[in-house]
């Protein structure tokens, strides 16, 4: 229904003002006269999602609210309305539109008349449908009835969706395809041929669900696979920009343990926001040397990282000016940044101060607000609590959507960092989010729910270039490209050519309960004098142990702690430190010790303000290839030194011997408090099994970079899904891969095959989880010959690794 401006009403209003009466506005037709002008001259920047300068003419409310520089339209007063001033201004810095033709005098007059008439608007009219605003609160959708026994809530929701669209139900995949998919998705590894055979032979009805549970119970493999995902999302790495100048801190140790222990996601997020020394790196961001723009300070980085990682909110626009593309404002971005800031933060618009100080606040005040006057640690705790507030559905929706994307190949909201967009299935997203909260934020429960659904276990959708042309509809999971880490791990699995050393500063794995129970320390708490119970505040004690090893160890782990802090040096290099005596450190030592003479140096320091008890304890278990184990533990046989080494663990001149080392008499108090943890950490460091080293534990290298592992200077939550030509060149002739294949071929050949077909069978089972066809066997025979050679095996390995069937999780 076209709107006609009601002249009578306008005149009735106008009669209230004698001045207005004198210049009674002419009759204006909003729909036919005003809308075309606004659309032609203003629409490009100020309607729909566009709001340059924070000003939107999209509907009447936004028109009257105005933009960053205040109101634009004063109904009834065209003469004072900045909009009229802008369209008539001759100043190129002020005039609107900034480019293109000026408005004709006739059009300007129409707009004047329209404003003078009270800027009437057709009810409900908007230039573009208002942008979707996602709900904040969680919602528990009613589940449709299960169809054909498909009772998983995901299937109940998706089956109803398929039925409504009369779309076919995607066909289930066979056991082998499922096994490969679920191994790669949950643990990032190919199923080993034996495990695959066992799974295929299993006749029990619930074997798929059992496999999912078994895989998720493999804490080490789980942690070392998902480390990739979280390193990307939290931009953590072992090398990269910023480390060289100390402007960046890793959170590797914290993250690894959080994943291995499956830390509930709410607690996980709280520890990243209200950080500890181990998790500080995420909040602290990257501090660049020199001057950076106002939109790139570590405080602003904090706001951007918290927004993107936990909420799928892109605050990058709003860090500089009110966003043109979503609802976030400059003040809101600065508010979040100010939660982290320790000093005053002046708000800058496009790098220029606006004369306002940021007030600590957070993005969804409807859930509560931060006390801007509280000190920083308290503000961070408040932010952490608001983030994980039970009513913050955005927090749970964001992470379940990311996990859905990892497993199903496409987000329910997509892209996954644009959580303001409408999901293709509200019920599915809301159900998964509530399910996570209901299960105490146990992310493995989310993975189990998805992986045990019939939807996950369906054939991958065949995607063409224009499949999504008219929007996405669900038609089964989508194939995912192997990540760089998955590709490299798979090559290492098949070829047995994984390295033995890795870069991540972590002690791998998780000890068994039995190993912890069986662990008894022989170490004693020691100090430099007998009156350790009344050691001076700040007193330093340096202890040394020299010893000889019969061979290089195959495994060596240690634990240490001190009241109040320690630094550990092995063979003149710093290895570990700790300043919280209640948190003993598990330390990996095998790469630090050598055959022959070794020395270990402990520098301990007492804390407090007056005399108080001091002590330090250390124990290492060193294992050799022959199975024997040697223990090095603090006791009275250690020697004291008069002065500590420099920070690098070096002495300028040979250190002077100090007095005798004393075993601290009254150490029961410490042992009661941390005895269990000392045993646990030593079991952790010395007894855990060490499976194949994983690519996620290594620094980024040429091959992984070529395969899409990001530089992690920015958060990159989704990896490229396509292989490109430069990458293909590296796969064709890169030395890293060639060398691995060469090493791999000799290992493969060492297995003594009955014939080339047997080898091909094994390779296809391992790499593709299926038996080769006769045609494939014939082709393989051509390259392998009767008696496989190293070159033949390398070439077959390469050809199979290059198959899309291998490079995709399908």
């Amino acid at each position, binding site marked *: 229904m076209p709107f006609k401006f009601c002249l009578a009403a306008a005149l009735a209003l106008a009669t209230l003002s004698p001045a207005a009466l004198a210049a009674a506005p002419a009759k204006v037709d909003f729909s036919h006269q005003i809308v075309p002008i606004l659309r032609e001259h203003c629409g490009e920047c100020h309607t729909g999602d566009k709001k340059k300068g924070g000003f939107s003419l999209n509907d009447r409310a936004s028109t009257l609210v105005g933009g960053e520089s205040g109101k634009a339209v004063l109904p009834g007063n065209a003469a004072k309305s900045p909009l009229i001033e802008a369209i008539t201004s001759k100043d190129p810095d002020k005039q609107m539109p900034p480019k293109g033709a000026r408005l004709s005098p006739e059009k300007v007059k129409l707009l004047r008349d329209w404003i003078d008439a009270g800027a009437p608007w057709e009810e409900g009219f908007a230039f573009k449908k208002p942008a979707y605003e996602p709900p904040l609160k969680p919602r528990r959708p009613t589940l449709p009835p299960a169809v054909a026994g498909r009772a998983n809530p995901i299937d109940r929701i998706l089956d109803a969706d398929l039925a409504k669209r009369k779309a076919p139900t995607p066909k289930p995949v066979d056991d082998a395809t499922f096994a490969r998919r679920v191994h790669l998705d949950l643990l990032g590894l190919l199923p080993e041929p034996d495990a695959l055979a066992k799974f295929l032979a299993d006749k029990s009805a619930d074997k798929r669900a059992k496999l999912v549970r078994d895989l998720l119970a493999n804490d080490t493999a789980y942690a070392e696979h998902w480390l990739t995902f979280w390193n990307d999302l939290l931009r953590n790495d072992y090398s990269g920009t910023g480390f060289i100048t100390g402007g960046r801190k890793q959170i590797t140790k914290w993250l690894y343990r959080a994943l291995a222990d499956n830390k509930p996601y709410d607690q996980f997020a709280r520890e990243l926001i209200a950080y500890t020394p181990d998790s500080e790196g995420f909040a602290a961001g990257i501090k660049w040397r020199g001057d950076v723009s106002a939109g790139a300070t570590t405080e602003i980085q904090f706001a951007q990282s918290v927004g993107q990682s936990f909420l799928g909110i892109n605050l990058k626009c709003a860090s500089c000016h009110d966003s043109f593309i979503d609802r976030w404002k400059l003040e809101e971005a600065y508010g979040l940044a100010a939660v982290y800031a320790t000093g005053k933060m002046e708000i800058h618009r496009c790098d220029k101060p606006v004369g306002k100080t940021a007030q600590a606040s957070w993005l969804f005040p409807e859930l509560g607000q931060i006390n801007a006057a509280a000190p920083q640690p308290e503000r961070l705790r408040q932010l952490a609590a608001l983030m994980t507030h039970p009513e913050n559905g955005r927090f749970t929706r964001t992470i379940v959507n990311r996990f859905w994307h990892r497993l199903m190949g496409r987000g329910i909201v997509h892209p996954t960092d644009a959580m303001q967009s409408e999901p293709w299935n509200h019920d599915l997203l809301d159900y998964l989010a509530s399910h996570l909260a209901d299960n105490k934020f146990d992310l493995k429960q989310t993975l189990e729910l998805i992986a045990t659904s019939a939807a996950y276990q369906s054939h991958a959708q065949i995607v063409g270039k224009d499949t999504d042309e008219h929007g996405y509809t669900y038609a089964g999971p989508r194939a995912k490209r192997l990540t760089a880490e998955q590709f490299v791990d798979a090559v290492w699995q098949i070829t047995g050519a994984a390295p033995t050393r890795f870069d991540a500063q972590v002690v791998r794995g998780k000890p068994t309960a039995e190993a912890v129970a069986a662990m008894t320390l022989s170490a004693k708490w020691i100090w430099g004098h007998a009156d350790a119970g009344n050691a001076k505040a700040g007193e330093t004690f340096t202890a040394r142990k020299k010893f000889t090893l019969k061979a290089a160890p195959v495994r060596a782990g240690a634990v240490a702690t001190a009241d109040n802090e320690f630094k550990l040096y092995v063979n003149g290099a710093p290895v570990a430190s700790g300043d919280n005596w209640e948190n003993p450190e598990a330390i990996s030592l095998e790469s630090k010790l050598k055959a022959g003479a070794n020395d270990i140096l402990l520098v301990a320091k007492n804390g407090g303000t007056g005399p108080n008890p001091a002590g330090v304890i250390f124990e290492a278990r060193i294992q050799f290839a022959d199975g024997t184990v040697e223990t090095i533990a603090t006791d009275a046989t250690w020697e004291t030194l008069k002065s500590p080494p420099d920070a690098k663990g070096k002495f300028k001149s040979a250190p002077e011997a100090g007095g005798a080392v004393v075993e601290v008499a009254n150490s029961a108090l410490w042992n009661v408090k941390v005895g269990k943890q000392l045993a646990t950490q030593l079991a952790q460091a010395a007894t855990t099994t060490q499976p194949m080293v994983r690519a996620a534990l290594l620094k980024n290298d040429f091959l992984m970079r070529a395969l899409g592992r990001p530089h992690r200077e920015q958060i990159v939550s989704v990896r490229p899904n396509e292989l490109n030509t430069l990458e293909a060149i590296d796969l064709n002739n890169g030395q890293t891969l060639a060398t691995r294949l060469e090493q791999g071929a000799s290992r493969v050949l060492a297995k003594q095959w009955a014939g080339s077909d047997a080898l091909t069978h094994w390779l296809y089972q391992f790499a593709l989880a299926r038996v080769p*066809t006769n045609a494939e066997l014939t082709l393989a025979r051509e390259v392998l010959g009767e008696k496989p050679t190293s070159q033949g095996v390398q*070439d077959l390995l390469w050809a199979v690794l290059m198959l899309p069937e291998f490079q995709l999780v399908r």
Partner: protein
Amino acid sequence: MNALPLDPQNTRRDFLQKLAAAAATTMAMGAPRLLANEKVVHPKATADACILIWMGGGMAAPETFDPKRYQPFEKGVPVKNILSTFPAIPTAVDGVKICQGLEQIASVLDRGTIIRSAVQPDLGHILHSRHQYHWHTGYVPPQTVAAPHLGAWMSKVLGPRNPVMPAFINVGQRLEGVGEQEELKAFTTAGFFGNEFGPMNLPYPDDAAQSVRPPKGMEPGRFDNRYSLYRKLVDKNPHREFMSDFQQESMLRSLDNAHRLLSSKERAAFDLALEPKENYAKYNTGRFGQGCLLARRLVENGARFVEVTTEYVPFLHWDTHKDGHETVAGMHKQMDAPIAQLVRDLEARGLLNRTLIVIASEFSRDAMIEGIPGSNARDQATAPSETLQEMKHYGLHRHFTGGTSVVMFGGGVKKGFVYGQTADERPLVAIKNPVPVMDLHATIFTAMGISPKTVFDIEGRPFYATEDGKGRAVKEIFA
């Protein structure tokens, strides 16, 4: 015969624009998208290929292309007297002088333009890596998205000139085993454009052939057989029904492209051993000289953008924090013959007119001033600043951002032209026509037929070829 006998770039651009218009799926993936609604008018290209000769580490303008008063080494001379440590020599252009040691470049200067007024911003600490990032991407780090390298823009917007040739090739810079390697990697990338538009890195020009050859120890016959085995396995794959999946198709296409390059005749371009001996000798002043030769061979065979560098390694090459004079004399030796020869060779082949050569560095140097005059940057030099006592303190040891020289040859720039001017007394700042990085980039983009306002949408935000689309080409230097 001015134009290169290869794909006319306009056809390529039309194709790309159509592709961009059709790429709705790419957008859904969150990938960058060429913004169509901005009325970007690409200028008419005056160059089809670009060779960036990168003097990483801070090439002192007063020691190269902008000589000032010469002060020979003398004990006890006040350091403030030192502006240049090399005397000026005449060039093929009347009245234009450059520094002694660059005689061969001087002899071809009538084919090029010197910009003497390039300026850099003050980024607090005058750090190489941040200025190098800024120079190569047009954006001051840190950025909230990974900014693409200049070469990646060429690759993304123009594409390859020859379909088998990678569009962006980076010669001479090691990215592993050198100081600040992570900082170098941060801008040696296509950033958010994706790896496809990123550099092919050839740190050792003499070894470049290896990069396009089958792996070491694999004879060509076996390499072809391996690929043919692969193709047959793909054909016989029982999961062929998935082959309609465009992700798989693109995977196959990429492998095919790679194999095509590795078996193509253009592969020979990478092999310096195929260059006639006497010509190789003209270039061979070391890795940099070999890089110039490689750049010529690559451009002859259809490369779009080649960067060749003297290599940035902290405290080596142009990063002269001591022994400046002697180090620079060595750099002169490295650069003089190969750069001059590159110009002559491209000219002799009729390629110079359509190939833009740019010689540039992240900033200049001065004997006294760190940064720009009045900057509070920490002094990077250890040399005493009062009087000269030792030879090792003779040189320009401080980072200077107030006036830097850039030299261009070919690609439509004026011949025998000087643009801009620096002061003749310290501070040697640009006093006429200052050219910030943004405008320098706009000039290079314009020569290549790319509007400086070209804009892509990434994460819903516009990202321009030059910051905010505001870079303005220095029109005066075009012929």
